[in-house]
C-alpha cells in the first residue's frame, strides 16, 4: 500500500471521467449556484451563469445563527440550531449502534451454522420491505401508548436502528464471507474468544463494507422525514423536519430552498468524505496463501 505509483490512463478515459463527474455533481453544483441567486434572477430568462451572487438565502435559512439581524428576514425560525444538534446526535448514535449490532448479527449468520439461519436472514430482508408510510401509524401508536418514548431522541434512534438493521446485516454478510476463515482460526488459537475474534480481527477487515454501510445508514438517519415528523416533538425534531416545515406553498423561493438543501446536504457530504476514505484496496493482501 505504500506503493505510490499510479497507473497511466489514456485521454479518452479522462474525458469520460469528466463527463461522469459533471453528470454526478452537476445538479448539486447547480443547486449550489442557485442558492446564491435571488429569486428574481432565478426566474428571469437571462442566462443562468451571469448573476449577482448573494448570501441572502443563507441568511434566511440560518437567521437564528446570525450575530446580526438580516434586514430582509421578516420572520425567523428559531429552531434550526436545536434541530441540527438533534440530527447530529440521532444520526451518529443510530449509525454506530446499527453498525455494531448489525455487524454482530451478520457475523453470526455467516459463520455459525445453527437452526434457522436461512429463515433469519430471509426475514431480515423481508422486514426491509415494509414502506415507512405504513409503519408510521403503528409506530406512532406503539411508541406513544405502549413504550411511552414518543418525542424522545431515543425513540427516534430506536426506529432508525431497526429500520437500517436489515440492510446493514445483509450487506455486511456478503463482506464477512470474504474474510479468510483462516484468520479467525488463527485468532482463536491465539486465545481470542468469539467476541474478541469479531472485534479485533473481523471488524477491522471488513472496513470497506462497514464504511459503505455507514454511509447508507447515516444517510437514512440524517434525511429521514416521515417517521421523525411523527415521532419527534418540538424538542427532538430533526433538520429535515424543520426544513420541510418551513416551506410554504405560497411562494417557492427556489433560492432559499436550494440554500437549505445545501445546508442539509453538507453533513452527509462531510461524512461521506470521511467514510469513503475507509474503502481501501486490498485489505486482506498477504494474509493467507490461497
Amino acid at each position: 500500500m505504500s506503493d505510490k505509483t499510479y497507473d497511466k490512463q489514456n485521454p479518452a478515459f479522462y474525458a469520460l471521467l469528466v463527463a461522469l463527474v459533471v453528470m454526478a455533481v452537476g445538479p448539486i453544483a447547480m443547486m449550489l449556484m442557485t442558492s446564491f441567486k435571488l429569486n428574481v434572477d432565478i426566474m428571469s430568462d437571462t442566462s443562468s451563469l451571469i448573476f449577482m451572487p448573494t448570501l441572502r438565502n443563507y441568511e434566511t435559512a440560518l437567521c437564528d445563527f446570525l450575530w446580526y439581524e438580516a434586514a430582509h428576514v421578516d420572520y425567523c425560525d428559531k429552531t434550526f440550531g436545536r434541530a441540527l444538534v438533534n440530527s447530529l446526535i440521532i444520526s451518529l448514535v443510530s449509525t454506530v449502534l446499527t453498525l455494531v449490532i448489525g455487524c454482530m448479527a451478520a457475523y453470526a449468520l455467516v459463520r455459525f451454522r445453527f437452526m434457522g439461519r436461512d429463515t433469519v436472514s430471509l426475514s431480515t430482508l423481508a422486514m426491509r420491505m415494509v414502506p415507512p408510510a405504513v409503519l408510521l401509524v403503528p409506530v406512532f401508536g406503539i411508541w406513544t401508548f405502549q413504550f411511552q418514548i414518543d418525542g424522545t431522541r431515543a425513540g427516534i434512534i430506536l426506529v432508525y436502528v431497526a429500520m437500517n438493521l436489515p440492510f446493514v446485516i445483509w450487506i455486511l454478510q456478503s463482506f464477512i464471507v470474504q474474510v479468510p476463515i483462516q484468520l479467525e482460526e488463527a485468532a482463536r488459537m491465539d486465545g481470542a474468544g468469539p467476541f474478541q475474534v469479531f472485534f479485533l480481527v473481523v471488524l477491522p477487515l471488513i472496513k470497506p463494507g462497514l464504511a459503505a454501510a455507514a454511509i447508507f445508514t447515516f444517510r437514512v438517519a440524517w434525511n429521514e422525514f416521515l417517521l421523525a415528523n411523527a415521532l419527534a416533538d418540538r424538542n427532538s425534531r430533526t433538520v429535515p423536519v424543520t426544513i420541510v416545515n418551513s416551506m410554504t406553498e405560497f411562494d417557492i423561493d427556489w433560492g432559499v430552498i436550494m440554500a437549505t438543501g445545501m445546508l442539509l446536504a453538507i453533513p452527509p457530504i462531510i461524512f461521506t468524505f470521511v467514510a469513503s476514505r475507509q474503502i481501501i484496496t486490498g485489505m486482506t493482501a498477504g494474509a493467507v496463501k490461497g
Partner: protein
Amino acid sequence: MQSANVNRLTPYLFLAPAALIMAVALLYPIGYMIYASFLDWNPSQRIGEADFVGLRNYVNLLSDAAFLESFWVTIKFAAIVVSVEMFIGVGLALLLDRNIRGMSLLRTLFILPMMIAPIVVGLMWRYMYHPTVGIFNRTLKSLGFETVPWLSDGSWAFASVVIADVWQWTPFIFILSLAALQSLPQSAMEASRIDGATGWQQIIHIKLPLMMPVLIVTLLLRLIDAFKVLEVILVLTNGGPGLSTEILSLRISRTASEFRELGEAAAMSNFLLILLMLLTFGMFFYNKAVEVRAARLRAAAEED
C-alpha cells in the same frame, strides 16, 4: 469451513441485540400493520376503536383500477431503474477501480448524489425540469431545439422520474460494487493477467463472479428500495400526470394520509410485501438450487 465446538450460545448472543431491536421496533409494528389490514381504521382512531372488516380491504383493492394501474407502474418503474442502475453502477465501479491520482476524491464525488435528502433531490430536479427556467429546457431552447414537456406529459414524466432516480441511486450500486471489487483477492487478479485475460475477460471471468454475492444482495436491496421510492416522486409529480408516475408506495402513503384509510393502506402494503417476498424468495431459492446442484455434481464426480 465450519468451526468446531463453538459454544452453543454464541451465535445467539451475537444475534440477540439485533433480534431484540427488530422484534420490538419492526416486527411488532409490522404485525400491527398486518392486523390493521383487516380493519376499517382511520388515523384519528386508536386501533382498538376500528371495526374489523375481514378481507374487505383486499377485495376492494383487487377491483380498484387505480390501484392496479399503480401496481403496474411500480413494477415497470422498479424493473427499469434497477436494471439501468445496476448496469451503470457496476460499470462505473469497474471503470474506477484503478490506481490513479485523485481516485478517492472521485469516488466521493460519485457518491454525493445519494447523500442528498430525497426531498431536496425532488426539489432540485423539479427545478431543473422546470418548463421555462429549468436548465434542460433552457439549454434545449438555446440550442434551437423543441422544449420537452418533462413533467407535464405522462411518458416524459415517467422518464423524468426514472432519470432522477437513476441519478440518485446509481451511486448505491457503485459504492457497494466498488467496495466488493476492492476486497477481491489481488492474487487471483494477478494470476488472470498472467493467464492472458484482457481487461474485459478479467471482468467477466474473475471480477464479476467473485463479486456475485455482493451484487445479488445489492440488486435485491435496490429492488426493494425501488418499490419504496416516495419523496422524490411525491415532490416531482405527486404521481401525475394522471396516474403515470403513481407508484405503489406513493399510493399507500396517500391512502394513509389523504384518504385516511389505514386499513386499505395496510392491505396495499401487504400486496407489495407479498410481491417483494416472491421476488426475494425466488432469487434466494434460485441461488440455493444452483449451490445444491453444484454440490451434487461434485459428489457425483467423486463417486466415479
